């Protein structure tokens, strides 16, 4: 029998994978994708807890998370293209040259 606890455990694992990806990867696009993975994992936990409590509030919050994630991706990728246009690189190591 699969309980909501199983889903929460899966979401914990996916969240940690996304977090490690954010820390390890250098390509800014891949870093964004890992952030998306973390947001998805949190959504799964929200939906599982909504199931646990038998209410729909968790699903509404997950819906809002999706909207915010979409807005974040749009702005983030626009910044990325702007940086790429001037620096010819999508690596997160390079923009630290801005301080010199």
């Amino acid at each position: 029998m699969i309980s909501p606890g199983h889903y929460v455990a899966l979401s914990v694992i996916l969240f940690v994978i996304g977090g490690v990806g954010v820390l390890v990867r250098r390509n800014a696009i891949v870093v964004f994708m890992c952030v998306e993975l973390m947001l998805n994992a949190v959504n799964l936990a929200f939906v599982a807890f909504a199931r646990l409590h038998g209410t729909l509030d968790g699903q509404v919050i997950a819906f809002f998370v999706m909207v915010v994630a979409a807005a974040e991706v749009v702005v983030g990728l626009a910044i990325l293209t702007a940086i790429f246009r001037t620096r010819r690189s999508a690596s997160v190591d390079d923009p630290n040259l801005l301080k010199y």
Partner: protein
Amino acid sequence: MVLAASAADTTRSITFWLLAIISVAAGLGMVLARRAVHCAVLLAVVMLSLAVLYAMLGAPFLAFVQVIVYTGAVLMLFLFVMMIVGISSADSIIETIRGQRMAAALAGIGLLVLLTFIVGHAAIGPGTRTGAAYGSSNINGLATLIFTRYVFPFEITSALLITAALGAMVLAHAERTSAKPTQRRLSRQRVASGRPAPLPGPGTYARHNAVDMPALLPDGSVSRLSVSPVITGLARGAGPGPAVRTEALRAADTASAGTASAGINGTGGGSHDSGPAGADSGDAGSGDADSTPKEAR
């Protein structure tokens, strides 16, 4: 009756474990894959399996939104930006900060242990099936909640979306810094560059007509300009190594990089006419010296 219920439970368990294994494997592959496109495809796998899990949890609306918004819109946006930013942008393997990977792995393990303890401590019982608007009334229940209790956050969401769209338009807009080159100027540049004809296509007079086969020049040597820099970059990353990197090849590389940037810019201009000229010397000087295994075939 009991048998049917247990059969449904078994199906549910099998689906859950299958999707859990698939999504975790795809997530790990996303972190480990070097090329950004592979990461995007693996992320799509994770998102689709999460959509099925939402449907199993009694959230059909969120399952469809997940497929349409995440897999359909957000991921396609990622792929389009990858097309602009460069499909060949693979991560470098060199660590800029010493011990960063090890520290990140330790932090990940620490976070996993912490969250596991927290979740393990909480007593998460079986899901309640009563009192909730699940099933066919799921969408009605969600709409009631969004437009009553969560109506103010919903309105703020619309403001956020408008701001994001405006911000994306402002940030992605490229101001032209120099005047657009006229056709007369471009043709003069082309004649002055010494290569009035367009770049040779791949596979011209080569032994195979694949896109990664360089064209042959009249003297029988290969023209590295005929192959897309994306493909040559790939071959270099996978294959021969520093032994092949002679001076001539480096000259050809810089030339092809110049043409590539001119192509992305769309403005053409100075880098375009210097490109083929530099590559001409590179190709002429190369001869047999820098023949990679692929070209020697």
